[in-house]
């Protein structure tokens, strides 16, 4: 495989919980992201899935340096960007861009489309000579499938899907190598979702982009991703390629998640076995000891309370080999006969 453009090592973000108005005392922390490791390779799409509140969006914000990580390192092509600031950070920002979830709040309603897509050039004047910018903005509109004549319009004159295209055009303006997509289609109609996904796939090939694609929709992630990471309570619990995760999941949480995907065939739906998890997701301010999934896991034993399972290929599965041998943070990782996921 190609070289890793982005390496994330032990990424942690804790939001302190304080009490008191004048004399603030820290009484705990919300451990939104609690030790995330992954690599992103040139030209690939890494999907990150998980429930609401598992820390997906915080990972995106940390990678964009919109939030300061509590610990851990983010390496862009081997350079640690976690502590960069000022000019050096600004230079790195040219290479990592973001597409936001909500196309209705991610575009300034009081700027024309031309100003919105042209802003990257104003912030990084070296990216395009001044006289050239308007033409570049129109080229970008054309690339994302919008009429270049729309340059003087305002965001409210567009539909949700068109707005998301504008957001993608803004992300593309600086020719980045990595685009972080934080649920880019979850606010759109299903018919429009497919168009935007197809656009993103086309752009990836055209510009050799690497995507980190964050979503809660398992079937969309399966469609677009080369590799998928499953997050639970601030950690990646299972990481593998599309076939490994969707056809041969070994972590109980992934298995439960996949068993909840609706199956379009009524007969298959009758036969399949759904795993209903007991209880709620624990609060990220009070994460269980050992394995964080043990409170809801049907396989949990004493070992799970005391030992944190590492995210690695489980030794038992490595011997067997095959698609089940991929990184899974479970002491008792094993394939299970569960109904194939839809999508």
């Amino acid at each position, binding site marked *: 495989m190609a070289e890793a453009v982005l390496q994330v090592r032990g990424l942690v973000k804790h939001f302190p919980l304080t009490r008191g108005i004048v004399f603030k005392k820290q009484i705990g922390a919300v451990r939104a992201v609690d030790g995330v490791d992954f690599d992103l390779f040139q030209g690939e799409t890494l999907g990150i899935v998980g429930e609401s509140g598992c820390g997906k969006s915080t990972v995106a*914000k940390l990678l*964009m340096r*919109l939030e300061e990580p509590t610990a851990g390192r983010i390496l862009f092509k081997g350079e640690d960007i976690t502590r960069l600031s000022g000019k050096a*950070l*600004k230079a790195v*920002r*040219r290479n990592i*861009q*973001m597409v*936001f*979830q*909500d196309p209705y*709040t*991610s*575009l*300034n*309603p*009081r*700027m*024309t489309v*031309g*100003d919105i897509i042209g*802003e*990257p050039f104003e*912030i*990084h004047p070296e990216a395009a000579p001044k006289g050239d910018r*308007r033409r570049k903005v*129109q080229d970008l*509109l*054309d690339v994302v*499938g*919008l*009429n*270049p*004549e*729309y*340059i*003087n*319009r*305002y965001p*409210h*004159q*567009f*539909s949700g*899907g*068109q707005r998301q*295209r504008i*957001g993608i055009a*803004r992300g593309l303006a*600086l020719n980045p190598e990595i685009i972080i997509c934080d649920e880019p289609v979850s606010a759109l*109609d299903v*018919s*429009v979702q497919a*168009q935007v996904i197809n656009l993103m796939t086309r752009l990836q090939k055209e510009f050799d982009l690497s995507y980190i694609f964050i979503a809660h929709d398992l079937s969309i992630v399966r469609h677009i991703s080369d590799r998928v990471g499953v997050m639970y309570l601030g950690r990646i619990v299972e990481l593998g390629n599309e076939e490994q995760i969707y056809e041969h999941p070994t972590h109980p949480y992934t298995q439960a998640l996949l068993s909840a995907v609706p199956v379009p065939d009524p007969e298959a739906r009758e036969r399949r076995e759904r795993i209903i998890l007991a209880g709620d997701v624990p609060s990220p301010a009070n994460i269980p000891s050992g394995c964080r999934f043990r409170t809801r896991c049907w396989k949990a034993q004493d070992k799970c309370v005391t030992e944190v399972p590492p995210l690695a290929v489980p030794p038992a599965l490595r011997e067997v080999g095959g698609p089940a041998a991929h990184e899974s943070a479970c002491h008792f990782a094993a394939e299970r006969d569960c109904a194939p996921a839809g999508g």
Partner: protein
Amino acid sequence: MPEQLEQPNGRTSADAVGNAGAGGAMEFAATEAASIGQATAPSARARSLWSDAWHDLRRNPIFIVSALLILFLVLIAIWPQLIASGNPLACDINKSQLGPAPGHPFGFDTQGCDVYTRTVYGARASVTVGVCATAGAALLGSILGGFAGFFGGWWDALLSRVSDIFFGIPIILGGLVFLSVVTNTTVWPVVGFIVLLGWPQIARIARGAVITAKQNDYVQAARALGAGPARMLLRHIAPNAIAPVIVVATIALGTYISLEATLSFLGVGLKPPTVSWGIDISSASTQIRDAPHMLLWPAAALSVTVLAFIMLGDAVRDALDPKLR
């Protein structure tokens, strides 16, 4: 003029085509339209919020009427002799409270002064107090409140507590204490006092508006592009937070002119021989049954002034909102 060639709302024909297909239909039409748009070179120049707003305002009758009124007020505030030949301080006690007479269309006040001349000359003090106090309070309030909302933290806490202190001062009592020690007879101590007590109101509004605007993803998007705090504030937050400030400031303008009247009535605001609507209104208000004309004219002038500024504020606010176009 190239503008005349466009449609009345200033949009090009391509926009009209796009508007025909609504919602999801546009989505499908977009790719197709893109190839057509490729061929036709872009005709219109680049537009921004401010040029679009100005384009709109020039065609808004409410803006034109209110702007002309304000222009007229400013002119007579500077040169009252343009429309009033008399002397506002030349009074004849024999004519006390008499009604309209030839050459004196608005009648006379208690001192026998010409109400018309005094109303015209009063514009200077009232408009100065109203405009300067509003400008000062709006500027100070929106800068301090805007920074508090944007940066948060201890600066926000400090500023909120300081504005609480100013909110706690009763305005009349504050005026009596503060202005009674001032011997200066110009309008400036009054303007200063109103700014001092008026800014916290604007600061609170600005702070809230900035906090609301700051949370939007487009501010995060700008930061992700590498924008500094100045660009985020001026380009993204300020245009989206200014509307409530404009509304409150234009309403406050009327309040400030009447506050000047109240302070003058209590003897701590403007002092005779300064001529102001406030002084005339407060002295006439006790005589409303015997000589209503004394109250009517300065009060009407005050109302029209306040109305003009509120209409102007409304028109500017609407022009700065692209959704209303």
